[in-house]
């Protein structure tokens, strides 16, 4: 048990160091933008005197050095205060929580969909290597990996929402309804197209990875021996294949959080889904610095959690680390 613990602590430490770096990076990027935060805050009210502007600057600590500003921001952040969003006129924290939950629903559905579908397709095509089905799946994946997900979303929207009218054009709930009145089915109805669009991003990676792994397993000596014992192909895959490939596949899926989030920014914008992604582009357009900073950090934490889980799983499932040998 001890080596696992050591591995976990090491991973955790590295990840925390990384998180600090990400917060510094986003902070530098956001504060060096040409948009003046005071202008952005005051908006159209131009009859504000220089003195008042200086007051605001002093109140926000804009006249201090970047290092001090960063430290102030971090201290406030640790107290749960991330400032006010100009776009939504609400505390950033509140926006992040509600929007992140909406995004999380969308992303987890897409994540599961792409993982399960990709895994099944990968196992089938790997088991039938060289068949017409395998070739079809390979071409499908090749085309899919070159296709921008927002174009797929656009086409789906045109076909199913505009032409056929099966699905709503956007938003996560029907317009003009109170959130307490919205039924579960209505939510699902609004989720299907965005989730499907988003799952497209991850699926081809998953299929190709699983397919290659299955082929590798089927070429090993222990599979040859199992064949000699008289086991048929699907039993072999069930007994020797799935065990070997399921965990790397799960790890891979956790490590893909970065692309998942990136894809959700595009998918949410197409379907006007009120999640973090659409808030991000709204914040960018309005120069809403606190919200931008909050979302960037939120996305980094999201990716960080995915990588952390992937790393920990890797440690748990990899006997070399589990039993104390140095990996790599």
């Amino acid at each position, binding site marked *: 048990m001890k080596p696992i613990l050591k591995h976990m602590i090491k991973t955790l430490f*590295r990840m925390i*160091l*990384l*998180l600090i*770096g*990400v917060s510094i*990076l*986003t902070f530098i*990027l*956001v504060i*060096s*933008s*040409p948009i003046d935060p005071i202008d952005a805050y005051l908006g159209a009210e131009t009859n504000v005197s220089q003195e008042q502007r200086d007051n605001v600057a002093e109140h926000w600590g804009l006249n201090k050095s970047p290092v001090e500003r960063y430290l102030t921001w971090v201290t406030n952040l640790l107290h749960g205060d991330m400032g006010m969003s100009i776009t939504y006129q609400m505390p950033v924290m509140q926006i992040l929580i509600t929007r992140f939950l909406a995004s999380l629903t969308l992303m987890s559905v897409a994540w599961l969909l792409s993982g399960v579908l990709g895994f099944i397709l990968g196992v089938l095509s790997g088991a039938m290597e060289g068949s017409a089905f395998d070739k079809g799946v390979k071409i499908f994946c*090749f*085309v899919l*990996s*070159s*296709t*921008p997900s*927002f*174009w797929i979303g*656009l*086409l789906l*929207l*045109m076909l199913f929402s*505009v*032409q056929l009218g099966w699905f709503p*054009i956007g938003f996560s709930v029907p317009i003009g309804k109170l959130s307490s009145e919205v039924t579960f089915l209505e939510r699902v109805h609004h989720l299907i197209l965005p989730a499907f669009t988003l799952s497209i991003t991850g699926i081809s990676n998953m299929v190709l990875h699983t397919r290659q792994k299955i082929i590798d397993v089927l070429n090993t000596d222990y599979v040859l021996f199992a064949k000699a014992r008289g086991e048929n192909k699907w039993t072999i895959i069930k007994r020797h294949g799935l065990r070997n490939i399921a965990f790397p596949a799960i790890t891979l899926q956790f490590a893909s959080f*970065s*692309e998942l*989030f*990136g*894809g959700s*920014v*595009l998918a949410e*914008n*197409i379907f006007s889904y009120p999640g973090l992604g659409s808030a*991000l*582009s709204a914040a*960018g*357009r309005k*120069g809403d610095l606190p919200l*931008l900073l909050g*979302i*960037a950090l939120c*996305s*980094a934490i*999201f*990716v*960080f959690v995915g*990588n952390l889980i992937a790393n920990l799983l890797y440690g748990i499932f990899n006997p070399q680390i589990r039993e104390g040998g140095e990996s790599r």
Partner: protein
Amino acid sequence: MKFVKFQHTSNLRKKTVLLTSIIILLLLIIAIAGIVINPELYEPNYESKKLVPSFTHPFGTDYLGRDMFYRSIKGLSTSILIGMLAATVSAFMALFLGLLAASVGGWVDQVVSYFVDLFMGVPHMVLLMLISFMLGGGLKGVVVGIALTHWPNLTRVIRSEVMEVRNAHYVLASRKFGASKIQVAIRHIVPHVMPQFIIGLILLFPHAILHEAGLTFLGFGLPVDAPAMGIILSEALKNIATGMWWLAFFPGAMLVIVVMLFDKLGEHVKLLLDPSSAQE
């Protein structure tokens, strides 16, 4: 059976060279056509608004009467050029950092690895939007953004390639003859990583093009009046309720084809430069 197959594919290399040349030619034609194209061809023509695809307008026309075929060509050309520029900058960054990390080693290596992890720790799309936002959008924002987000993967590849030959006999011998670290790096190590570098560079193009289109689509990339792929598709989204399906379908399909061509190009160049990868 295997022997027969071997006989049959003995001139595979020639075929690969031929295919590679065809792909390069196709991409060049699109890129150059976009540059030399007469701008009048995709200018608004109010007499032919909202036309369905036909022989005179293969991709139809939009609500301003602009011919979508020529607009797509122009957009693709812009995308290819921007993608290539940004990917090249990014690849050279990766080459430099990878070489630096592996040949100096020690704390330099750790710093580079830390930055690799750092830039991979924020989703590309978010980082792209932030960088583009910081630079005030436009062409500069897109190119710098893509260049700054795409180097980490290739840096890792090049770093591990250099690690492989760092202690090879010919490198050690050269050091013993008094060559400096920089001389060794340029004379012996760069030629060794060149194949991986070129493959990595070409495989960066499709990513760069897709990210450029995505960023512009969201409104953080090229200006709205530029005939870029992202602009064309975001206009199609705005007018989605009008049912003009050809506005989104054809330009997007062209984009997919160009990205696929780049992907294939990378694959073929990989086969040519690194023949052992053909067995994979």
